[in-house]
């Protein structure tokens, strides 16, 4: 067997110890080295974590492995033999499979149909479904992957959809399984189950590459971990001898505080009140939010926890005015255009612009759908909520270019928003993290009375999350009301002064953040537990 000198001595001893080796991979794009001499070696039967911030080069490396990009330097080896991967079909033929963060499933097809899609067993074009079903059922029993082969994808839980994706790989006899941020959409219980599945797969000899930036999960399930930072290879460590702190230091390049310190809250007067709120669902004929009531006081962070799709999105649409209410009333305290305080008054029928002027800020759930005009420059996105104000628009309706630029430069400086060309960068070309920072800068700089923050740390890495959390606590400490909607249990536990758990459109519990546990929250979120009086105050 031919071995290059660049290959480490470890490989020389026993080349076939590794399922996949990516050796000294360098991939350049004009203006940037996305992967700079990166080596990743996946042992047979191990769970290997790939850790790195957004933009660290994880996606590029995986794209190289799938043949979407050709590296300028470096080799890829399968079972010790050098291979050339020109496109995803080559990767598939080598037994490499991937569960994407956003599932690639046909919603109106059954689980079984999705699994066999593209490799349907057939005789002269006629499907042999029975054969396929037997193989799928056997696989699901062997690895403990609970599925219903005949259920439609649209009707099953996210967890089962993910298991369908895993079965898709197994059905194709893939040996190397890549999981891209697989836990982002799962409940704590489902995460535990996934971890167990991954362990089972590894025990059966599958090699698993686990892409994540959640340190707890990596520590819980992985054997080894390779860390990338800004396109560079930082190192590979054994999970057994490492700590969360060490991993985060390798990933971010500095010490990170996981729990942003905060003072005891001192809630003041009620700044926002929802009374018997009901909002229609877009997905079905019924209500997505059912008769929900709660208050948010000055100087407190109230967190609405729950699994995705239990009415949180619609609740926020109702509060911010993006969708009309079915019934119920909203009240908010705010300030007029001269900055004078307006006491709690009804805002149920106010349009979005008026709510915004009154002092409501909204960090939206989907930053690409609502939060940004991606084809606008960064400076134009900064003024999205305020462009009509006299400081940015003259009486004749002309934009004040210079004032806008100065304002944008100020926010870039203050919030450390990084981009290629500063204020004139097209927002689309910025990373998710910096896009999110831009939104937060805009919404916080409005000096809101009520800040509605929906998953403000979504898709951000630990360093950036820390920054976002600091901003929220600053808002609280400045005597404003913060309504946080989060799917991340860590975030809920760390930030909340009060927790409201939403399940199927209702508030089913308000556990005290000081005494509750992740397990208890999980039970509420899954609908297994509920307080007698669903109303919260």
């Amino acid at each position: 067997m031919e071995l290059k000198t660049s290959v480490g001595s470890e490989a020389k001893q026993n080349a076939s110890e590794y399922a996949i080796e990516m050796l000294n991979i360098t991939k350049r794009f004009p203006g940037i080295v996305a992967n700079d001499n990166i080596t990743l070696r996946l042992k047979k039967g191990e769970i290997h974590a790939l850790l790195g911030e957004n933009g660290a080069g994880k996606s590029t490396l995986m794209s190289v492995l799938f043949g979407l990009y050709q590296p300028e330097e470096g080799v890829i080896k399968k079972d010790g033999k050098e291979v050339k991967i020109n496109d995803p079909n080559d990767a598939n033929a080598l037994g490499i499979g991937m569960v994407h963060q956003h599932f690639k499933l046909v919603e109106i097809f059954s689980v079984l149909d999705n699994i066999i899609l593209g490799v349907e067993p057939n005789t002269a074009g006629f499907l042999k479904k029975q054969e396929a079903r037997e193989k799928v059922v056997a696989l699901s029993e062997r690895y403990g992957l609970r599925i219903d082969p005949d259920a439609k994808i649209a009707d099953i839980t996210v967890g089962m959809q993910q298991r369908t994706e895993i079965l898709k790989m197994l059905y194709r006899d893939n040996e190397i399984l890549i999981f891209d941020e697989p836990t982002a959409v799962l409940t704590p219980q489902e995460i535990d189950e996934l971890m167990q599945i991954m362990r089972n797969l590894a025990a059966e000899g599958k090699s698993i590459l686990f892409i994540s930036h959640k340190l707890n999960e990596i520590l819980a399930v992985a054997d080894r971990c390779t860390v990338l930072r800004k396109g560079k290879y930082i190192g590979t460590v054994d999970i057994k001898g490492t700590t969360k702190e060490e991993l985060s230091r390798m990933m971010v390049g500095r010490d990170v505080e996981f729990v942003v310190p905060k003072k005891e809250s001192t809630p003041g007067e009620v700044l926002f009140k929802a009374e018997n709120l009901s909002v229609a669902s877009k997905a079905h004929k019924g209500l997505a939010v059912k008769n929900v009531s709660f208050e948010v006081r000055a100087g407190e962070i109230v967190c609405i926890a729950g699994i995705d799709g239990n009415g949180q999105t619609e609740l926020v649409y109702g509060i911010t005015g993006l969708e009309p209410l079915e019934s119920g009333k909203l009240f908010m305290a705010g300030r007029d255009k001269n900055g004078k305080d307006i006491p709690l008054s009804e805002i149920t029928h106010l349009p979005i612009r008026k709510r915004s002027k009154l002092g409501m800020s909204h960090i939206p759930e989907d930053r690409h759908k609502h939060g940004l005009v991606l084809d606008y420059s960064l400076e134009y996105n900064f003024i999205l909520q305020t462009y009509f104000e006299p400081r940015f628009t003259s009486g004749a309706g002309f934009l004040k270019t210079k004032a806008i630029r100065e304002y944008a430069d100020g926010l870039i400086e203050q919030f450390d928003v990084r981009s290629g060309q500063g204020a004139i960068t097209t927002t689309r070309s910025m990373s998710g993290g910096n896009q999110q920072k831009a939104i937060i800068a805009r919404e916080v700089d409005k000096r809101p009375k009520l800040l509605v923050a929906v998953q403000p740390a979504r898709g951000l890495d630990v360093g950036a999350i820390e920054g976002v959390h600091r901003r929220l606590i600053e808002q609280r400490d400045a005597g404003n009301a913060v309504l946080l909607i989060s799917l991340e249990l860590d975030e809920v536990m760390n930030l909340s002064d009060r927790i409201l758990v939403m399940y199927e459109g209702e508030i089913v519990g308000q556990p005290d953040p000081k005494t509750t546990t992740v397990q208890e929250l999980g039970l509420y979120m899954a609908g297994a537990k509920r307080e007698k009086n669903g109303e919260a105050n």
Partner: protein
Amino acid sequence: METKSVQKDKNFFQKLLAHPGFRSFAAALACILIGLLIGYIVLLIINPSHAGEGMSTILKNFMTRNSEKLRLKSLGNTLVKTAPLLLCSLSILFAYKAGLFNIGAAGQYVLGAGAALYCALALNMPWYVCLLAAVLAGAVFGAISGALKAYLNVNEVISCIMLNWISLYTVNSVLKDFCPVGYKDTFTLVSKNPSAMLPTLGLDGIFGNSSVTIAIPISILIAVAIWIILTKTKFGYEIKATGYNRNAAKYCGMREKQNIILTMVIAGSLAGLAAALLFLSDFSQWDINQSSVPTMGFNGIAASFLGGLHPLGAIFSAYFIQHITDGGASLDTRFYPVQIADLISAIIIYLCGFVLFIKLKMLKASGGIPQKRPDMEADIKHDAENKKGGDK
């Protein structure tokens, strides 16, 4: 340090391609050249011995005329038709910035012509009233498509195309009472109502062509005005935001439904005005027997894309398209059938629609894709600057 070394990878050509203005210009040029090449091949196939001569006739247009006087007159004719074409292209471009495809410019143009001529011939109104009537007529049809889109989410392309035919037959039937007996064209304004003709401000004298009127300066001024509105005003900011991302426009409290309607109203007015600028002169009359929607509105699509969707670019692209169309019309009919002129200009106009495609190819060649990368570059730069700061 790192950024410097990789910067060298970009050669001069790539840097040039990275500039959006240059890409628009180069892409338009490439489209024109490919269009001319294919046109030339068609000429070769039909009559090889006169292909070169034919191509030169198309490209030279008015310059083939014998005397200075005739050349100016001929140029005047081209300009007279450039003005409405420019306004149609502005109509499409303006709607396009708001994310709407105003294929109804053709119908709004027809309705504008009908309204202007009705006011002139039936009501004996002066030219400015006729102009206003045309603008309003176009605006109303624009508003219909806009309202259907905003409130009922009816695709504007569908509603526009249907309105195109409604406007054609409405105008044909309304104007049929205003033709000389036995003729299919409407009365000339000179014979019926000279006050409805646009003032010439002496332009007719300069060109030796009585059809040259204030239509030409008006259309250029409007192009500049549209450019200012789109880039410098609050209204333009809202229109573009709505066009790029309707959800974000709603999120930040813009009245996105009203903006969509208003955009179509403006687009419709521009197309309506276009027709009035052509028909309120002695240049041509309305043919009440025509059974297809005039191509002016559709050619506006090509002109707006060829002009890089830039109002000032549209001035040049509209002129160019009219130039080759008129040039084609003067092809020698002994060697080429009459239809060939239309075919050649159609090929070139068709190729003009490829501008965006070629621009994208150029962007790829410049290394602008994948788009995520510049940001990482920024991160590295940021770190480098921090280090520099530390050294001081």
